[in-house]
């Protein structure tokens, strides 16, 4: 068997695939962050908590109303997104005319409160969430055993990312949105309800976090801390990709998943710091991130 740096090529392919799967979570989450930042200029630190709420929503739907995974995939993001809308209407809205930092602090504090409440109620060891029966099992690809569910995660995330990119960059609605961020007063003058559009955009970004939470529930425990662990990494991904760049966050999300997966083979101890090392290097040479533009 041939090897690359002492690692069998077969194992390497396996790790690449695993990296792509983790990358899909990074991509969906950083996409939500980018949408919110790009269009609202809010650094949404509550994104991790909202991701966790997505997983919990799936859990509650199953426990209380018997709605399984497929319903959860539809309903949970709506519930979490609605929650985001309430948050935007009642709190975030008041901060638009202030510095970015205020939005960051508000959402960060909000995340701490939500996570604290869930942890107090449900403990920290997590709750089990069963995999949908249709996606249980897996197939042997020769070089690795690929669980069907993880394959589904890649496909679904890619679809979601590209769909979002298409709506924002290629449709009329997307062009309204982009115009509204450039010059809200002018767009309003054309009869577009800008405040409502902003609210819905925030709700959509939050819903993306909710979807990622539902996707994560069968893989990880449904855990109050799941968002707190992930959000810092996702922020690094967004910074590397360039804050606000839609395509940037999708591409870096997947790429960094792969880089992290490879680190787990070659030097596992560094696997949770490698992304930050890359972030530092990128910021040295391109302060606006790989795909970012100066504003």
């Amino acid at each position, binding site marked *: 068997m041939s090897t690359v740096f002492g690692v*069998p090529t*077969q*194992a390497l392919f*396996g*790790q690449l695939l*695993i*990296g792509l*799967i*983790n990358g899909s979570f990074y991509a969906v989450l950083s996409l939500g962050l980018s949408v919110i930042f790009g269009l609202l200029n809010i650094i949404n630190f509550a994104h991790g908590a909202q991701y966790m709420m997505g997983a919990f929503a799936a859990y509650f739907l199953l426990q209380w109303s018997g709605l399984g995974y497929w319903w959860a995939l539809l309903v949970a993001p709506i519930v979490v997104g609605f929650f985001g809308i309430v948050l935007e209407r009642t709190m975030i809205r008041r901060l638009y005319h202030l510095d970015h930092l205020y939005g960051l602090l508000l959402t960060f504090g909000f995340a701490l409160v939500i996570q*604290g409440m869930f*942890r107090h109620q449900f*403990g*920290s*060891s*997590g*709750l*089990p969430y*069963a*995999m949908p029966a249709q996606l249980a*099992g*897996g197939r042997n690809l020769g070089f*690795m*055993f690929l*669980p069907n*569910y*993880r394959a589904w995660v890649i496909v679904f995330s890619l679809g979601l990312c590209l769909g979002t990119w298409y709506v924002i960059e290629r449709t009329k609605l997307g062009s309204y949105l982009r115009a509204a961020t450039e010059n809200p007063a002018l767009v309003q003058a054309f009869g577009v309800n800008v405040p409502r559009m902003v609210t819905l955009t925030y709700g959509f970004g939050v819903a993306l976090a909710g979807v990622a939470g539902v996707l994560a529930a069968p*893989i*990880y*425990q449904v*855990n109050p*801390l*799941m968002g707190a*662990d*992930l959000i810092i990494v996702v922020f690094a991904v967004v910074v590397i990709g360039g804050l606000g760049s839609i395509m940037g966050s999708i591409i870096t999300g997947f790429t960094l998943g792969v880089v992290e*997966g490879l680190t*787990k*083979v070659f030097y*596992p*101890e560094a*696997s*949770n710091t490698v992304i930050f090392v890359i972030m530092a290097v990128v910021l040295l040479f391109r302060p606006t991130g790989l795909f970012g533009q100066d504003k």
Partner: protein
Amino acid sequence: MMRKTLIVLAVLLAFAADPAQAQISDGVIKIGVLNDQSGLYADLAGAGSVVAARMAVEDFGAAAKGMKVEIVAADHQNKADVGSAIARQWYDVDKVDLIVDVPNSGVALAVSQITRDKAKAFIVSSAATSDLTGKACSPNTVHWTYDTWALANGTGNAVVKTGGDSWFFITADYAFGHALERDTEAVVLKNGGKVLGKVRHPLSTQDFSSFLLQAQASKAKVIGLANAGGDTTNAIKQGAEFGIVKGGQNFAGLLVFLTDVHALGLEKAQGLLFTETFYWDMNDKTRAFAKRFAERNRGIHPTMIHAGVYAGVSHYLKAVEALKSDDGTKVIAKMKEMPTDDPLFGKGTIRADGRKIHPAYLIEVKKPSESKYAWDYYKIRATIPANEAFRPIDQGDCPLVKK
């Protein structure tokens, strides 16, 4: 009203107390429960340990005996610097006499050293590293519930003897994981088994798929999980997804707690083998304790860590009562002198190196069909007698033990 009565009672008792009471520094015995209250070890220790310490004080009848006992608690966030700062603050400023629990071996080793410097008392219930009674042993520390040597020998022996002779380790990359991996590897090699590989992951890892893939590729019969809490449950859960057990490999959970099994659910945890020193459903006394404990801890039943905190605090208070002093070094010496006896671990002793000695149990997790009531999770496969459960005193290199 209740409060007023208590205050009056306390004042009366303070006057009635004999002169020896003056030996208790500032008149209060202060116990600090220091652990992870918010992270991946919060359920297996956390708030439950505070409940256990309170129950120990109440059951001891401290108030009726004229002893004023206070309990404080803090979150060390699994950081040795945070834990050390709290321990110093407690000892120097807040007049804490005893620190208990302290999961995370890195933090516990630091606190043990500080306790020694300040001549206070430290009872470890949840940190696992066997170094606490080995080369890092201290006259001010008692290691109560279990340690990596006991876990490694209990589980390692049983697994190797039933045919699991080739191992791959997935290890948490800090003091605890390293100690557990080292002690288990020694057992595997001693029994003629071999270790095919190991991988070390950062504490609190979400995704184990890369590590599981490496374990799968190693073709080892047994995948030893030298980690704990959320790390263990994540690894086992994702292992099921990657068909590890279906593919003929088995997990050996080297440190698994009742709360981990609860979080996994029996469907995923069934058949898992590991070692514990306490199970709530062993006899009437443990069941009675568990019932009272669960009522005060969101229904969560006690882990062996909670039991260790209860038993450790009980024994500490007995020693303080006998000695009529809360001088840390003297109390720990007295604790070693007195035989231990509590409803949860039964009769036992504390050795010169600080190791508490009691039996250990090899546990197998029940199938969902075998579980009859809530929290009915374990089958006790074997009892490891007290004299075999822990490392012989002359093999730990503890400087307190005279050769």
